[in-house]
């Protein structure tokens, strides 16, 4: 079973740009950016990546590499954490958006699903979903239809009538993704969507991601720890470490890479290494 039958796919609100000749330009391009928190802590040191229209691109890397920071730099949310893009530029549909106000970036069609769910706890599921559609202007009826669509994707949420704060971790994750769907953006930045989800739901989420991409034409930049799933869904991947992109390539190429296999996929493809038997602490490879 793939995704539960999605509601008749409505046409995307944010139609991809059709300007001729624009196809050479990726939808989103990040050029050599540097990010500093609190005026002193340098976190990203020259990160470049591109997300073409209509693709799923994934960003992998260990904890603390700066993946979330990269996403926040794109969505402008960095500002709210006292961070700044101090060098390089970020272009969305050819226009610079580095350090722009987050709400204006959302209006342009970039929507970030933040790490750690971040739903509005003292609102109900429906209210959270309505909030997702805040920037939309296509009327209450379209939004109601979309709410139905989201609830079809995540039937569990339908039964949850209390405050969202009382949902279980996984339910909150569903809600966060559903909220992004409500915004109908051009580009969704997904920060670890599979975190805390059961295997079944991880599969569902990834098939939803593919559906979003294929049927609604939404482009995605996906930060994931579940590299197997991520590379399975994406067409291209970047690997970050210590604030730098250390490797990139098409998804199949990355999946074939020995280092990627070792550190992100858990040993050579088919036969998994057992967690139990890693008696000695492993070698560490760093691309520094």
């Amino acid at each position: 079973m793939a995704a539960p039958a999605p509601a008749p796919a409505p046409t995307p609100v944010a139609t991809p740009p059709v300007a001729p000749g624009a196809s050479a330009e990726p939808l989103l391009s990040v050029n050599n950016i540097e990010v500093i928190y609190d005026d002193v802590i340098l976190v990203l040191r020259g990160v470049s990546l591109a997300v073409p229209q209509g693709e799923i691109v994934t960003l992998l890397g260990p904890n603390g590499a700066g993946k979330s920071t990269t996403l926040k730099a794109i969505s402008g949310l960095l500002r709210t954490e006292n961070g700044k893009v101090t060098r390089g530029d970020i272009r969305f549909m050819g226009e610079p958006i580095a350090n722009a106000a987050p709400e204006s970036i959302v209006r342009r069609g970039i929507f970030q699903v933040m790490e750690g769910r971040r739903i509005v706890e003292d609102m109900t599921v429906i209210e959270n979903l309505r909030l997702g559609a805040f920037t939309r202007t296509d009327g209450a009826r379209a939004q109601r239809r979309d709410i139905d669509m989201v609830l079809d994707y995540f039937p569990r949420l339908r039964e949850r009538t209390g405050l969202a704060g009382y949902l279980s971790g996984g339910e909150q994750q569903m809600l966060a993704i559903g909220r992004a769907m409500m915004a109908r953006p051009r580009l969704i930045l997904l920060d670890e969507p599979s975190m805390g989800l059961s295997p079944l739901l991880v599969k569902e989420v990834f098939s939803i991601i593919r559906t979003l991409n294929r049927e609604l034409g939404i482009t995605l930049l996906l930060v994931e720890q579940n590299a197997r799933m991520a590379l399975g869904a994406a067409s291209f991947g970047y690997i970050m470490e210590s604030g730098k992109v250390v490797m990139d390539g098409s998804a199949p190429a990355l999946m074939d890479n020995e280092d990627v296999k070792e550190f992100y996929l858990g040993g050579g493809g088919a036969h998994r290494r057992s967690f139990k038997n890693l008696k000695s602490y492993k070698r560490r490879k760093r691309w520094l």
Partner: protein
Amino acid sequence: MASVSMRPCGDFRTSYKDDSRLFDTALTARIGIGFLLALYLLVGLPLAFPGLADWPVLGWFADSYFLSLGIQICLYGVAAMGLNILVGFTGQISLGHAAFFGVGAFSSAWLNNTWGIPVVLAIPLAGLMAAAVGLLFGAPAARIKGLYLAIATLAAQFIIEDLFVRLDWFTGGSSGAMANAPELFGFAFDTDQTYFLFALTITIVLTVLATNLMRTRDGRALVAVRDHYLSAEVMGINLTRYRVMSFGLAAFYAGIGGALYAHYLMFVSAEAFTILLSIQFLGMIIIGGLGSVKGSILGTIFMVLLPEVMAGGMGMLQATEWGNQPFLVNGLAFLREMAIGAAIILFLIFEPDGLAHRWRQIRAYWSLYPFSH
């Protein structure tokens, strides 16, 4: 993994003991202690040899205006430190700190006047009495949280203020109570010079105590309660106990500050401990920096000096030809008030994390210099 420790390069610690010193480096320790010693000396010298008071620089340290500002900084600073324990460290906003300050002031005067307890003993006892009242009014903190608690403390402020006027036997009712100067071995601290040294000593002791508290078990528990009380509970911390205890501690410090106030002015009246003072205390710690012992003092300095500086500024404005404009002549006093309000606003816009934060940043900058960024 980025290490975010901000310590000067080349400063390595070889033992945990080194790592837990009061001052970050030997240098800051020397500067800090040296500064305080110099202060004692500079104030003490003209006191011992009155002739020195006429010397150019030493004279400033015998100037009772400066000293009275210093005394105010000490006594409000102690109380602000207490409030910072409650608000900054434990995360419970209090709008009733002035009331506890008042309890300390009245208690100390009462203990001394009615029971003949020497002032130097009455002051710590007053701290304890204030702490008892603090615990009483802090008890609801076991159940009430956040702004609800803040408003409950506002209620405490008004209730205690009302009691000040009501409890004649204790406070002298609406006509207030007299207080005596502290004495030690027959030596009275009744001039600005001596009282400054007296208050300074108490302030230093209480600052050290607070700093120690914050780096040991109970201090950490307070911060834990603020940052994440649910996980604090699972770490074995009794939430109720610490929430209420921080009220007691805050009130203790406030009480000592109030007692110092009483024995400096030698008169205590309920009028002095209004909600406005409570708000000023809050201003001190917010401006100084929440959750910083040092910040409490810095903020107090700011709040005590601000009106004085503004008054000075207005004096200068008055001296210019501009100052003769009729609208200014009448409005000078209002302008000063407005300037105080504006200073607070501007300060917070540009320094929302308080002076202590800026202090740390400057230090980090210099210790990383020339490799900042």
